[in-house]
C-alpha cells in the first residue's frame, strides 16, 4: 500500500486549490456565527469580574488573539519542517501565508493586552517574561516577512524562511511556560488541559471567541495561499518566457 500517495494527496496544487476554495466560505460563516455568539455571551451576559469589574471583558479579544498568534507560528514551523524535509513547494507557501495573519494577531495580542494592562496593572507595558516573549513572537513574524521579501529566488527564500521559522519556534515553549518558570506580572494559566478556573459562561464565551478567531485566521490564510500559488505560477511562467526569448535570441548555427 502506497501510504505516501495518501499522505501527500493534497500536496499537488491541482488538488489543494479546489479544497481551499471550498473551505474558505464555511470557515468565515463559522467564525462570524461563533464570534457573534461568543461576544454576545462575553460582553452581554457574563458577569463582571470580582476585582476587575467590566474591564476584564478584553479577555474575550486578547486571549483568542494570543492563542491564534502562537498556534499560527507553530503551524508555520510545522509546514516549514515538512517543506524542508520533503521538498513540497506548497508547504512553504502555507508557511508564507500564515506569517502576515500570525503577525497581525500577535500585534493585536500586544495591543489588547496593553489596553487591558493600563487600567488593571497601572502600566501599558512591563518587561516580564510573558510580554517580552510575546513581543519576540511579533518580531519573529516580522523578521520572517522581511526575509521572505528580501530574497528574489523563490526556492532560496523558501529554505531561508523555513530555517528561520524553525529556529524561532524555540520561543513558543518559552512563551507558554513563561508564567510558570518566571515570576511574572502577567497572570498564570487559567485554562489548562486539567481544567479551567473560570465561570462556565465566561469559559464558554472564551472558547467560542477562540474558535471564531481560529476559523477566521484559517480562512484568511487559505485566501492568501491561493494568491501565493497564483503568484508563484505567474513568476514561473514569466521566467520560462524570458528564457524562451533568450534562447530564441541565440542564432541557430551557434
Amino acid at each position: 500500500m502506497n501510504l505516501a500517495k495518501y499522505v501527500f494527496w493534497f500536496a499537488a496544487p491541482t488538488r489543494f486549490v479546489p479544497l481551499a476554495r471550498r473551505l474558505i466560505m464555511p470557515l468565515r460563516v463559522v467564525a462570524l456565527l461563533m464570534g457573534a455568539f461568543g461576544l454576545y455571551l462575553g460582553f452581554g451576559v457574563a458577569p463582571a469580574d470580582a476585582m476587575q469589574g467590566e474591564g476584564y471583558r478584553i479577555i474575550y479579544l486578547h486571549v483568542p488573539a494570543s492563542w491564534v498568534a502562537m498556534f499560527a507560528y507553530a503551524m508555520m514551523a510545522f509546514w516549514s519542517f515538512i517543506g524542508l524535509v520533503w521538498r513540497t513547494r506548497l508547504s512553504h507557501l502555507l508557511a508564507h501565508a500564515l506569517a502576515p495573519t500570525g503577525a497581525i494577531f500577535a500585534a493585536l495580542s500586544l495591543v489588547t493586552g496593553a489596553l487591558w494592562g493600563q487600567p488593571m496593572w497601572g502600566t501599558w507595558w512591563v518587561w516580564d517574561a510573558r510580554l517580552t516573549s510575546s513581543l519576540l513572537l511579533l518580531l519573529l513574524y516580522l523578521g520572517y516577512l522581511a526575509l521572505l521579501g528580501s530574497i528574489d529566488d523563490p526556492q532560496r527564500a523558501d529554505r531561508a524562511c523555513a530555517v528561520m521559522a524553525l529556529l524561532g519556534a524555540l520561543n513558543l515553549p518559552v512563551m507558554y511556560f513563561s508564567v510558570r518558570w518566571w515570576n511574572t506580572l502577567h497572570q498564570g494559566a487559567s485554562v489548562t488541559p486539567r481544567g479551567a478556573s473560570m465561570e462556565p459562561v465566561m469559559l464558554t464565551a472564551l472558547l467560542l471567541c477562540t474558535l471564531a478567531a481560529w476559523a477566521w485566521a484559517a480562512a484568511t490564510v487559505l485566501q492568501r495561499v491561493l494568491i501565493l500559488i497564483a503568484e508563484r505560477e505567474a513568476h514561473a511562467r514569466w521566467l520560462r518566457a524570458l528564457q524562451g526569448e533568450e534562447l530564441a535570441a541565440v542564432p541557430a548555427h551557434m
Partner: protein
Amino acid sequence: MSEFFNPWWHDWASFFQMGRHGLYVWGSVAAVAAALVGEQLALRSRARRLQRMLREDELR
C-alpha cells in the same frame, strides 16, 4: 441555562461605559475590527494587482 439570555446591563449607557473601562474595552474592539478589516482589504488589493498583471501578460 436561563442566565445565557439575561444581559447584565440594564441600559445602553452602562454597556458603553463598561464600568469605568469603556475606553479600554471599546478601544480593543476597535483595534481588532480595524486590523481584521484592514487585512481583508490588503488581501483584496493584492489579488487585484495579480489579476491586472496576469491580464497584461495575456495581452502582450
